[in-house]
């Protein structure tokens, strides 16, 4: 469980940490969109440099970000391989029937690789430097225009908050149930795949039951404390948009401008 970097928060006091979650979310979404606007190596180079600067500024070791890529590396390599093998055009280096390795294929592969890695890096920057609760607040605020379309934005963000709040509890509980089963003589991580899966049943069932009980208790508590989804609520958490947030957004806009101009330089293939 500890290997999962995505979705974890690293306390810190860097400039990136201090940014408003809304600014961070917007900038990250903008950056990811830019990755699909960029079509030549100049723009990718610029984006890579920007990403590295932001990662550096977050004050978190680059190693952590690389660890974030690791669980997805096979998916990335698979996609890249497909691109390399099945894109035709330009100089052909290898030709085996339907499979060709061409210049365009290789370039495409490199670009796709950069895209994937940068998407992971940037979203990891956001999750590593923002408290989950601030993130849900940010999402709530950003989604709030949807209220006019009768989307239950507040309910969704409360659900998110409670879900996040219970992740450590569920992990603890899983550990407890596993210990209890171990005390009864189960050994985990041994036997055939089918056997191992069978051993998971006595873990999942108690977890499921206790989660249901928990949910029921919690619903009672929320009701007693006056929670009604139909009633307007005030919010105890306030987000403060500061100058640095505006600056971050302005930088994003400038970056977008540059990428769009670079796009005029020419297409994918030099």
């Amino acid at each position, binding site marked *: 469980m500890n290997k999962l970097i995505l979705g974890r928060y690293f306390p810190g006091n860097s400039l990136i940490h201090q940014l408003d979650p809304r600014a961070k979310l917007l900038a990250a979404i903008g950056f990811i969109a830019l990755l699909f606007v960029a079509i030549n190596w100049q723009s990718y180079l610029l984006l890579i440099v920007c990403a590295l600067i932001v990662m550096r500024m977050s004050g978190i070791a680059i190693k952590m970000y690389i660890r974030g890529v690791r669980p997805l590396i096979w998916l990335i390599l698979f996609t890249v391989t497909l691109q390399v093998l099945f894109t035709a055009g330009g100089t052909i280096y290898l030709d085996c029937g339907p499979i060709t390795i061409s210049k365009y294929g290789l370039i495409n592969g490199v670009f796709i690789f950069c895209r994937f890695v940068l998407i992971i890096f940037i979203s990891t920057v956001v999750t590593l430097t923002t*408290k*989950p*609760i601030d993130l849900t607040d940010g999402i709530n605020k950003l989604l709030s225009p949807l209220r006019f379309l009768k989307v239950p934005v507040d309910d969704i963000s409360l659900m998110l*908050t*409670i879900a*996040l*709040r219970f992740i*450590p*509890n569920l992990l*603890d509980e899983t550990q407890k149930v596993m210990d209890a089963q171990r005390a009864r003589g189960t050994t985990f991580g041994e036997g055939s795949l089918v056997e191992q899966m069978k051993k998971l049943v006595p873990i999942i069932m108690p977890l499921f039951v206790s989660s249901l009980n*928990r949910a029921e*208790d*919690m619903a*009672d*508590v*929320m*009701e*007693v*404390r*006056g*929670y*009604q989804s139909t*009633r*307007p*609520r*005030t*919010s*105890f*958490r*306030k987000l403060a948009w500061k100058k640095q947030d505006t600056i971050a957004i302005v930088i994003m806009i400038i970056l977008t401008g540059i990428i769009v101009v670079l796009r005029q330089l020419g297409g994918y293939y030099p």
Partner: protein
Amino acid sequence: MQADQSILEVNNLTFRYDLRKDDKTLSAVSFSIKEGEWVAIVGDNGSGKSTLARLLVGLLEAESGEVKVAGVQLTEQTKWTIRQQMGLVFQNPENQFIGATVQDDVAFGLENNNVSYQEMKQRVNEAVQLVNMEAFMEHDPSRLSGGQKQRVALAGILAFQPKIIILDEALVMLDPKSRRQVMRTLQQLQDEQGLTIISITHDMNEAAVADRLLVMDKGRLKQDATPATIFMENPHLEAPFAEQLRRKLTAKGSGITSTYMTEDEMVKWLCK
């Protein structure tokens, strides 16, 4: 008339979980509680104490009988307004923690009632101070002990400023020192603001603080009297510490009075 001053009135409350079966969890329970009173409800496991608490706030619907809070009968329509005057602190602190941090959790009830931000901030601070948790405002629940979580749950209700607080074994996880502290805070609120407290408990020392004791047995209200009367008349009931000491001293023939003593009285007698 007594009915005028009683803030909570329960008449003939009957309830069973399974309508197909005959065994009632509560049968014809009636009592009334005056404003500013501290009432403890004691009884064995399964005597219907927690069910009673749930019925009082309208989490369960009674089969027959009525609950009146400040003269208003509890119904499906009135339960939301009644819950603004009545707070219930549950036993399990883990599942009571809704906010992501201590202050968010304390504010949850206030948010639900559309309290303005400024007032919310102030009330949260006050409530957290009342339970001595001000050093933990920003902490998330996974970093708190069971007792600390219980104190936060209590603060969540106190911030609400209800007229009645129901504690459903809400102090069991506190260590003796902080339990005493919390009890003192509650007593203070009772004295100063006329807070009505209903504490459901197994701990006889906690029960002994009450002005009145309700003894539940198999879904019936067995006795309704002052702690002194109840501990004198029920020698089989595990007595609070002072009373146990008195009984032992009596057995040794130390010349102590043969009537129930509160802790303060015992201290005074011992110092004589």
